[in-house]
């Protein structure tokens, strides 16, 4: 398969004004602003093949969206190079964007005052979509995204989930070869998320569209992508198959317990124990491949009287932190 997207040592720095607070601070902001520089993307490289579906994951402010915005030609990179389907996005923006579709979960692309259908008509003209392709696509997306009920209602009257689906259809009407989804499931309920995920997966499988999917939601990635790129602090932490991360992280459990008496010399084999003295909270992290949950519980209860206890699977943030700090080795 051909390489569709190649990114080499990409970086982007933002200049941010540091605002002082209070009245004196406000005066200072006007006459003597201070700035700091934040490296949003710091030397990322990767390449994606045609038809691949890649999940970008990372905490807020990790640089996912900035990367996607550079890939879609909106932002100019400070360093490094991007090549997507033979185009340099920020230099050939007008020609390039006719080949891609982008969905921003936080920014709607369709007109607030008009119905999705009206907006689609405009898109048809802007992208010069042939009548037949337009009709076929519209029919197909209306069906797949279940939009019949609201396609002719003004967008301002739609629910967030409906608007998101209308937005996704809008980004795909011109049958782009490459699609970027930037947090398309943000703020959407479980049913809505499921519809969107299924649609994206279907599209990737049947149309061989190359896709990048950014999210905070591990579920999104699990249900759609085979490959995963983890980004934190502007750097790439992991790039590889989803399976690897899953097998390594799925076995990790965390027990949080509130204990009455102070634990003294507590040491259970194959676990990591931290204790917060001020709240009396005890955190035990372990790997279920090495020690079973019931063994840990028994060990805990034999030495402590427990007021409250909960068992957690680590969230994506802690998985990333673990990868970052080398506690979990992947790839």
């Amino acid at each position: 398969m051909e390489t569709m997207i190649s990114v080499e040592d990409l970086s982007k720095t933002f200049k941010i004004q540091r605002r002082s607070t209070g009245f004196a601070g406000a005066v200072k902001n006007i006459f003597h602003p201070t700035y700091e520089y934040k490296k949003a993307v710091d030397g990322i490289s990767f390449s994606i093949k045609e038809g691949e579906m890649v999940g970008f994951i990372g905490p807020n402010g990790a640089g996912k969206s900035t990367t996607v915005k550079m890939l879609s030609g909106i932002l100019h990179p400070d360093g490094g190079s991007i090549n997507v389907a033979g185009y340099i996005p920020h230099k050939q923006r007008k020609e390039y964007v006719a080949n891609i579709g982008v969905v921003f979960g936080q920014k709607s692309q369709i007109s607030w005052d008009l119905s999705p259908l009206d907006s689609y008509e405009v898109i048809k003209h802007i992208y010069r979509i042939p009548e037949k392709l337009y009709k076929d696509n519209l029919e197909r997306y209306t069906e797949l995204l279940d939009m019949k009920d609201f396609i002719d209602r003004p967008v301002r009257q739609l629910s967030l989930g409906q608007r998101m689906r209308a937005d996704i259809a809008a980004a795909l009407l011109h049958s782009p070869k490459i699609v970027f989804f930037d947090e398309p499931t943000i703020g959407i309920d479980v049913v809505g998320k499921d519809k969107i995920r299924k649609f994206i997966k279907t599209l990737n499988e049947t149309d061989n569209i190359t896709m990048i999917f950014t999210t905070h939601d591990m579920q999104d990635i699990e249900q759609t992508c085979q490959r995963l790129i983890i980004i934190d602090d502007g750097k790439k932490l992991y790039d590889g198959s989803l399976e690897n991360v899953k097998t390594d992280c799925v076995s990790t459990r965390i027990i949080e317990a509130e204990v009455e008496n102070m634990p003294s010399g507590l040491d259970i084999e194959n676990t990591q124990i931290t204790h917060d003295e001020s709240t009396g909270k005890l955190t035990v992290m372990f790997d279920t491949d090495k020690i079973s949950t019931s063994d840990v519980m028994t060990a805990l209860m034999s030495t402590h009287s427990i007021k409250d206890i909960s068992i957690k699977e680590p969230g994506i943030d802690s998985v990333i932190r673990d990868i970052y700090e080398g506690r979990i080795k992947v790839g």
Partner: protein
Amino acid sequence: MDRYLQFAVIRFKSKTAYRFDYFLGILNSLLSFVVYYSIYKALYGDAQSIDGVSFSMVTTSFLISLGLSSAFHKNEMFLQDKIKQGTIANELLKPVNFKLRMLFEDAGEGAFNVVFNFLPTALIAAFFASISAPSGAVNMLLCIASVILGYIVLWQISFIVQCLSFRLFSVWGLVTIKNVVINILAGAYIPMWFMPEKIRSILRFTPFESIYFMPVQLYLGQLGQWEILFGFLRQIAWIGGLYIIGELCWRSGIKRLVIQGG
């Protein structure tokens, strides 16, 4: 070009969604016409003409200026709002020239304003004020051509000021000052006939005179061939110069773009 026309059409359509706005708009235009009309009626008193300018020439000039200011629509907060809210990201994803798209959207709203605001106002005004008739078909065509050139000049100045929002984030103050200055220099408030000769001789080299005043003069048939030719050449030269400045501002702005809000 058809894809850009779409932006004009869509703007025109979505303006029709707010009916109350539309009636108030007519009332607003009518009021400002009546105010100017009354002031100059008092100034003229019984006199037929002042400095060779008749009262009906002045009212016609006001009416045309009124029409032009509604036709010369510029959404001056467009770029600022898009940058502030980060929705400029969506705009940049459209496979179109950003500037042309902006221009056509504004022109669409301008067309709406002329059809639904200026024409009704002019019809009502013609009942109580004496308005001069156009001075001939050729002059009318030249008048329309000069209106279009004037619009492009005005629009490009607005675009350049808007481009400052890449650095300043808020350009409202600048836009307001700019508009007052242009309106005075272009004779939208005081007809050029009454400007001191010294100021007029300087203004002759700026593009402002042709924006509001040249269409009025063409409409009234007051210009000779050479004056018309000079006027048009001056506008075209200014359009070229402003285009270059606008492109430079846009390119340097887009490089430092920050998308707000994730």
